[in-house]
C-alpha cells in the first residue's frame, strides 16, 4: 500500500504550477518511477499533482525552425514508435525503444524518463545515504558494481535514463514552467552533477515542471544512434551506453556529440571524444581515437573498472554503426 497523499488534478498548466509550489508536492506523470519511490519510502509526498489533465503536454509536433517539440507527457512508447523521430532523430527512437518493458513504455512519459530518480540500490533501499540527507555514500566501500566511473563526488550514482543521453547528444532543450513563466534550458544543463549539489538531479525548482522537450533541426549530414549495453535481453537499465550524433559533410565530421550512459551521475558528454572526431573522416583510426578519448579520465571504484572498456566499446560500436 502506498503512503497517503492528496491528489490534485489541475486542468491548466498555471494551476498545476501553482499546486506544485506547495512544499511536499510531487508531479505525477506516468507514475512508473514515482509510485515505486513512494512505496519504498525513498522520499515522501503529501500531495501529487497529476499532469494528466493537461493535453497540451502530449504529442509530437514540428517546430517552425525545423525541429520537433515533444510534450513532456508524451509516452515513451509514442516516442519510440514515431516515424519522424525514427527518421530524423534515430538515437532518440532507439533509446526510447530500449527503455524498460512494453508496459512501462506505454505508461511512462518522456518527461518522467528525464526526471526519474537514481537507481542506486542504496538510494532506493533502506539506507540513509548522502542523497537522502544522510552522512555518506554507501557505495564507496560497499557494493559498487554498477556505480559511476565519471563525475562521482560524495555520491556515485549513475543516471538511469536512456532518453537523456540521446537527447543531450541531439542538443535538445527543455522548457520548464514555473509561477513566473517559463524558461528554456539546454538539456545538458538541466542535470545537476553531485559536485554542484548531491541532493538533486535536475535544476527544477519547487513549483517548476518540465513541459516540453525541443530537439532542434538536425545538422547537415546528420546521423545518430544510441548503443545500450545491458545484461538482460530486455527490461534492464544500461550497464553502459553511448549516444552519438554526428553531422558529416564532404566526408568529414563537422558536428559531433558523444554522450555516455551508465557512466556518471548525469548523462556524460565527452567533448574530448567530439574533438577527436571533428574535422576527420569517420574511419577506423578516428573512431578508435574518439573511443579512447571518451573514457580518458575515468575513476573507477573498487568493483566497476570493467565499465571503462565497456564504455569504450559502446562508443566504438555506436560510431562504427554510423559509419556504415
Amino acid at each position: 500500500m502506498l503512503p497517503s497523499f492528496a491528489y490534485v488534478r489541475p486542468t491548466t498548466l498555471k494551476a498545476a504550477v501553482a499546486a506544485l509550489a506547495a512544499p511536499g508536492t510531487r508531479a505525477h506523470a506516468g507514475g512508473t518511477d514515482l509510485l515505486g519511490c513512494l512505496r519504498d519510502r525513498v522520499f515522501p509526498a503529501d500531495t501529487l499533482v497529476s499532469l494528466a489533465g493537461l493535453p497540451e503536454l502530449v504529442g509530437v509536433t514540428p517546430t517552425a525552425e525545423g525541429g520537433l517539440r515533444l510534450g513532456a507527457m508524451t509516452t515513451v512508447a509514442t516516442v519510440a514508435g514515431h516515424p519522424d523521430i525514427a527518421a530524423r532523430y534515430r538515437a532518440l527512437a532507439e533509446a526510447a525503444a530500449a527503455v524498460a518493458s512494453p508496459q512501462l513504455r506505454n505508461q511512462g512519459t518522456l518527461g518522467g524518463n528525464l526526471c526519474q530518480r537514481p537507481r542506486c540500490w542504496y538510494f532506493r533501499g533502506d539506507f540513509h545515504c548522502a542523497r537522502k540527507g544522510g552522512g555518506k555514500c554507501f557505495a564507496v566501500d560497499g557494493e559498487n558494481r554498477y556505480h559511476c566511473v565519471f563525475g562521482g563526488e560524495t555520491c556515485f550514482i549513475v543516471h538511469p535514463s536512456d532518453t537523456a543521453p540521446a537527447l543531450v547528444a541531439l542538443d535538445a532543450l527543455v522548457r520548464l514552467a514555473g509561477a513566473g513563466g517559463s524558461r528554456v534550458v539546454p538539456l545538458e544543463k538541466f542535470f545537476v552533477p553531485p559536485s554542484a549539489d548531491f541532493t538533486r538531479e535536475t535544476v527544477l525548482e519547487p513549483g517548476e515542471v518540465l513541459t516540453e522537450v525541443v530537439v532542434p533541426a538536425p545538422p547537415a549530414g546528420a546521423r545518430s544512434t544510441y548503443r545500450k549495453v545491458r545484461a538482460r535481453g530486455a527490461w534492464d537499465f544500461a550497464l553502459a551506453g553511448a549516444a552519438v550524433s554526428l553531422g558529416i559533410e564532404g566526408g568529414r565530421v563537422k558536428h559531433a556529440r558523444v554522450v555516455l550512459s551508465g557512466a556518471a551521475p548525469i548523462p556524460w558528454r565527452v567533448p574530448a571524444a567530439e574533438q577527436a572526431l571533428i574535422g576527420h573522416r569517420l574511419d577506423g583510426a578516428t573512431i578508435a581515437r574518439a573511443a579512447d578519448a571518451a573514457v580518458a579520465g575515468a575513476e573507477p571504484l573498487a568493483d566497476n573498472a570493467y565499465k571503462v572498456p565497456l564504455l569504450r566499446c559502446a562508443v566504438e560500436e555506436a560510431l562504427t554503426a554510423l559509419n556504415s
Partner: protein
Amino acid sequence: MTSHLEPVPGPLGGRHPRIDAAAKVTGSTRYVADLALPGMLHAALATATVASARVLGVDTAAARAHADVVAVLTAADVPANSIGVIFGDQPLLVTDRVRMVGDRFALVAARTAEAAWTAARLVGASLEELPGVFDPVAAVADDAPLVNGASNVFRTFHVQRGDTAKQAKRAAVVVEAEYRVGGQDHAYLEPQGCLAIPEGRERITIVASCQCPFYIQQGVASVLGLPLAAVRVEQAPTGGGFGGKEDYPTEPAACAALLAWHTGHPVRLIYPRELDLQATTKRHAMVVRHRWGADRAGRLRFAEVETFMDAGAYVGLSTVVAERANVSAIGPYHVGAVRVATHVVYTNNLFGGAFRGFGAPQVTWAAEATMDKLATRLGMDPVELRRVNVLDDTRRTICTGQRLRTPVLAREVLDRAVELAGWDGFRAAPPAADGAWRHGMGVSLVLYGCNLHWGGQRLDRSSAVVILQADGSVVVRVGLTEMGQGNLTACQTVAAAALGVDPSQVQVWQPDTTTVADSGPTVASRGSLMSGRAILDAVRRLRVRLDPVAAELLGCRPGEVELAGGFARVAGSPERAVAMQAVAKEMSARRIETIATGWHRTKARRFDPATGQGAPYEFYAMACHVARVAVDPGLGIVRVEEVTAAHDVGRVLHRDALEGQIHGGVVQGMGWGVSEELRLDRGRLVNPNFTDYVIPTSADAPRITIALVESDSEAGPCGAKGIGEPSFIPTAAAVRNAVCDALGVEVDTLPLTPPRLVEALGERHPFAWVVEAATRPATEHEPATVGPRA
C-alpha cells in the same frame, strides 16, 4: 521432441490439457492472496537489517499503540521457540542474538496489512553490532567470529574410494582449480504466503503456498505445542516453488499460526516482494576446489574435491543439500580414485535452503569445467573426453561404489544431445564471428539420483487415496503437491491409465494433511514418481472390490476383468464390456466400499556416511545439455542461442508437462549461469527486487531442442523418472563451457555477467589497456577537457 520408443496407447505420454488449465487461463485459481475470511487479520514481521548483533532489548510499545494493531508478539510469547527443519539452531523469534538479516524480532497482527507492516517498522530493537563473517572459506579460519555454536564448520561429508595418491602417479595431466559458484533466489512469482484459521484453542488449519504441507504441520504443531492431529495443512494453489517453498514456508506458517492462536482470528501473512527476496532461503553459494588427473588416453585417474558450502546463519536443510552435493561431485564418470569432502559452513549470510538441484548444480558446474580444462590440456575434444569416461552398461559403478541398474543411459544422452546440436560440425567448422559476436558450444552431463538421499530415506514414502464416485468419476488425493510442475496432471494421467478411463473423469485435489498420510516433501523430482506409485497401489486395492462386481456384470471371472477405454471388459474379448459408470453405480447400490488407499516406499538401502560408500539413491537419471552461445567479448554479453537437452526419463507420463519442465529448467539454469547474482553487503541483500536481481525474460529464452531417451525401468509409475531437477542441473555448466569455448579463457566464477566476463578476459579483453590508460593520474589527461561542463 523425439523419442525412440513408440508411445503407449491411452493417456500416458500424451498431451491432454492440464487439470488446472481452465482455471489458470481465466484467473480463477485462488492463491493464498486471493483468500479472505470475515474477521481476518493481517500479519507482518519486524526483522533485522544487520547480520550480526547482540540483542539488548526489543521495544514493541510504539507498534502496540498503532491504530488497528491487535497483537504484537515477541520470543517470550512463543511456546516452543525453535523452527529449524532438522536441527534446533534457529529460533522462530530471536532472543539474544541476530545472526542474519531477516531474523525476526516480533510479529504483528492488525486489521489491515498496511497497519501491520507500518507497526512492524515501529518495533525498536536495541542492538550491539558484532563482527560477522561473510565468506565460507574465511569462516573456517581459526580467528573467524563464531556464528552459531562452537564451530563454524557444522559438518563435513566425505566420499572416499580408491587411493588417489597412487592413481595420481598415473595421471599425465592434472588440473587444479578453485570455483566460486554463486547463490540464487527462487524468485517464484507468487511470494510466500499463508492463512491460519484457528478453531478455539483446540486446533488450527493452515492454508499455505508450499511444497511440503507435512513440514508445516510438524513445525506449527511443535511451535504451538499441539499434537500433529490438531494441525491441518491444506496446500493452496502454489505460484512456483523450485525448492523455495520446501523448508521455508514453515516459518511464515508458524508466525501466522502464533498470531492466530493468540488473537483467535484468522490471520493471513503475505510477504512483500522485497522481504521475500531479503529474508528467505537461497541456493547455496559454494567454493569448490578441484584436483583432477587423467592419463594420456584421457582416462580419469583420480579426482579430489573439497567444497565449502555457505550455509548462512542456520543449518536448515544444508546438511541434506551437502549430501547430494557430496555424491554428485564427480558426475556420471568412471574415476579410478575419488576423495570428496563437503563442508557445511556457517556464515552471517542469508541462509541456504532447498533449490532445484539441491547442491548438485554447483558441483556439476565445477566438475564439467574441470572436464573441459582436462580436455584442453590433453588436446582432446570435450565430448571425446567424456565418451572415454562416461558410465554405461559395461562400466556402471559410481563414486560411492553403487552399481547402477541397467540400462545406464549416460552415453546415450551424450550421443543424442551432441548429434542433435550438431557438435561435430560446429567443432569442425566453427561459425565465423558475426560482427562482434563470437560463437561457442559447450556440453555438460549429469548423474541425478532420483528421490531422496539415504540420509532422508525415512521420509521417502507416499500416500494416495482413490475414490470411485457413484457416477464413475474418480477423486484422487495424494500427499505431494502441485506447484506448476504438473503433479496433479501426472497423477490424473496415472490414475486414468490405471482405471482405463479418460483423464477428464479424474479429479486430483490439492493435498491436505487430513486426507492422506505423511508423504514426505515434494522435492527431489519425486512428485510424480512417488504419487504415481501410491496411486497404482490404491487402484490395485480398489480393484480387489471392483473386479468381482464388474465380473458379475460381465459374466466372467474377476481375474479376467480389464479396465480400458472407459469400460470394464473381458480380457481378450473387448466386445464384452460394461461402462465404468455402470460398475460404479452397481458398487454404490450394493454399498461396496469405493475408497482405497495406496502407499509406496522406496527400497531400503545401505550407505556409510563416514566413507560415502553405498547406495545413496535408489535409481538414477542421466541428462546431457549442449549449449550454443554467442558472446560479445568487448561488452561481455552472453546470448544463449540454443540448448539441446537429452534426458533419460524412463517413460513419459505427460508430454507437455515434461517439455515444460525441461524448458523451465533450462531457462532458470541459464539465468543462474549468466545473470542472477545475489549482491550482499555485509550479509544484507542490496538487490532485493526484480530490477536489480535479473531473471530471464521471454527475450532471453534460448531455443530449446529436446531429445527424450526412453526406456522401460522399474523406476517410477509406468517407468517414469524424475525430470524437475535434471532439467536444471547441466544448463549453467554447458553455458559456461560454451562461453569459455567462444572466448578462449577460463571463467571459474558463476554467474557469467558482463562485468565478470570482462574481468575474466583481463589482458585479453580487446580494450584491456584502456582501464590503465584512462585512469592514469588526472594531470596527464588535462581533465578540463573531459566532462560535460568543460
